[in-house]
């Protein structure tokens, strides 16, 4: 017991160190390369061009990568705990798709550009509307099946709305802007974006983390968990809302970023085991590290236009995920649903 606990905290420390390293790299790397000394000097003193670059451009971008990656990782781990299924991921309940649709609408039909603050605000509102719809359709005593079906329907509907907006976009530039925005990017995001999204992230973390023990009890199935005192209705409600609020805010400021929520919990399960309560924190840290690393990668790749980080997470994430499934095939086949 104590050995596994030591092992667990050693992993947390290693992930925290990795995140710190990636954060410093993220402050250094960009069109104007900075040395570690110049980057940290700019961060702490704010002097000269380095200060402006680091404080106004790279710091918000880095913090957003960390917070969004962490939120996606935590959401994935929580949903996998709730559904007792390692394939669950944050897009299941339709909130990210709804956020994308609302933000697309704002880009297409308002004077606002893709980086204006009206876009994330609309996205968060879209996510909240979709959660409201989900709760209204599924009802308070919703079974998981009903909630999942309703979420799937809302996700498809939001996808159709996004397609309609692209279809009706007033001019090709707006359509192109939406298309690029949907790919997911952290480019040119400001401190204002950070401040808009951060409260939603914090609410999401609290709602998800408070259910850690319930996820663990659910390994015995819903009846046994309920007999142990877990309030299943409240659990489902808080997790659906927590995921929707956090992931909705993430999509609202950065567009769609896939696969982090699915992969991060898988990565850490290899090290900390499958106890769903113990996967939450390392899952969040791994998500933060993954997205920050992906965002550094897009800045390092030589390309005429910067690659979108959402493209990179999917391009790297999918083959990696397939390789992981391949190597764990036997174990996955043996595990009950």
């Amino acid at each position, binding site marked *: *017991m104590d050995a596994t606990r030591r092992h667990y905290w050693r992993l947390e420390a290693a992930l925290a160190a990795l995140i710190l390293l990636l954060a410093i790299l993220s402050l250094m790397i960009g069109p104007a390369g900075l040395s570690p000394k110049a980057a940290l000097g700019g961060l702490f003193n704010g002097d000269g061009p380095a200060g402006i670059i680091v404080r106004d451009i790279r710091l918000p971008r880095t913090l957003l990568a960390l917070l969004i990656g962490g939120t996606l990782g935590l959401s994935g781990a929580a949903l996998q705990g709730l559904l*007792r299924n390692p394939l669950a991921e944050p897009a299941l309940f339709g909130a990210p798709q709804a956020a994308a649709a609302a933000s697309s609408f704002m880009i297409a039909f308002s004077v606002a550009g893709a980086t204006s603050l009206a876009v994330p605000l609309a996205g968060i509102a879209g996510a909240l509307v979709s959660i409201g719809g989900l709760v209204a359709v599924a009802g308070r005593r919703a079974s998981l099946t009903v909630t999942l079906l309703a979420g799937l329907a809302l996700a498809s509907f939001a996808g159709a709305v996004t397609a309609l907006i692209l279809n009706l976009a007033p001019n090709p530039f707006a359509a192109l802007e939406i298309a690029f925005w949907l790919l997911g990017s952290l480019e040119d995001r400001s401190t204002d974006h950070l401040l808009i999204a951060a409260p939603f992230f914090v609410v999401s973390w609290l709602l998800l983390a*408070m259910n*850690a*023990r319930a996820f*663990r*009890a*659910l*390994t*015995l*199935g819903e*009846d*046994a968990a*309920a*007999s*142990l*005192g*877990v*309030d299943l209705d409240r659990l489902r409600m808080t997790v659906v809302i927590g995921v929707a609020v956090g992931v909705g805010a993430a999509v609202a400021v950065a567009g769609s970023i896939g696969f982090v929520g699915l992969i991060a919990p898988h990565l850490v399960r290899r090290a900390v*085991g*499958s*106890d*769903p309560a113990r996967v939450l924190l390392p899952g969040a840290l791994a998500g933060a590290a993954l997205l920050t690393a992906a965002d550094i990668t897009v800045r390092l790749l030589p390309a005429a236009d910067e690659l979108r980080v959402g493209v990179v997470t999917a391009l790297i994430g999918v083959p990696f995920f397939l390789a992981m499934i391949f190597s764990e095939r036997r*174990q996955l086949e*043996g*595990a*009950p*649903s």
Partner: protein
Amino acid sequence: MQRAADLSVSLAGNVIVDGISLDLATGQLTVLIGPNGAGKTTLMRALAGLLPVTGRLELQGRALQEFSARERAQRIAYLPQGHVFHWPMSVAAVVALGRHPHADAFAPLSDADRAAVAHAIAATAIEPWAARIVTTLSGGERARVALARALATQAPILLADEPTMSLDPRHQLVVMELLAGAAHDGGAVLAIVHDLALAARFSDRVVMMERGRLVADGGAREVLTPERIAAVFAVEAAIADSAVGPIPILRRPL
């Protein structure tokens, strides 16, 4: 200890449990028997507080609904059918889940929790696999881990749905002895069992259900008669007197 009065449960418009009154007494192992579809599992889930019911359910003299989920969970341990484990966790971690109703959120296990877990692991003789991953165990081994998890709660009431399922003969006896022991140590134990010989041998009381209703309630000798076994189970049976008491011998389906 726990009392149900005129308890009915409807699922999807069908009456599954129909006006059952039952009193689970401290110090008794009550065995619930009945053919498939008689409503045994539904009755047990209702007693565990997991289903909306009509009629009255009392726990220690108070209405069950007056207890918080946590208070209820501290008093009623429920072992569902099937012994499900979704995640490949260690056996020790699974048994420790039995302490869920006692632990505070975010607090590690207390000394009392650890003692209860160790006691449950020792009682079910699963120490050799305590560090193993539960999903790698055989069906019989899982059944004992599931029982250990329920025992670890140390609740005064234990509801066990087919605890001997998929166990070999020796471990069926071990589990029935454990349940009888839990009852004689001051618990109220209700177990659903399909093997009438096990029911006759280990029960202090046998409750027989058919189509949602209680059709017999009493000692094994009174309840398990050839006539009743024929009427309820559609099986021709004889009762043999043995060194361990009367044992139903099943001859052929009717």
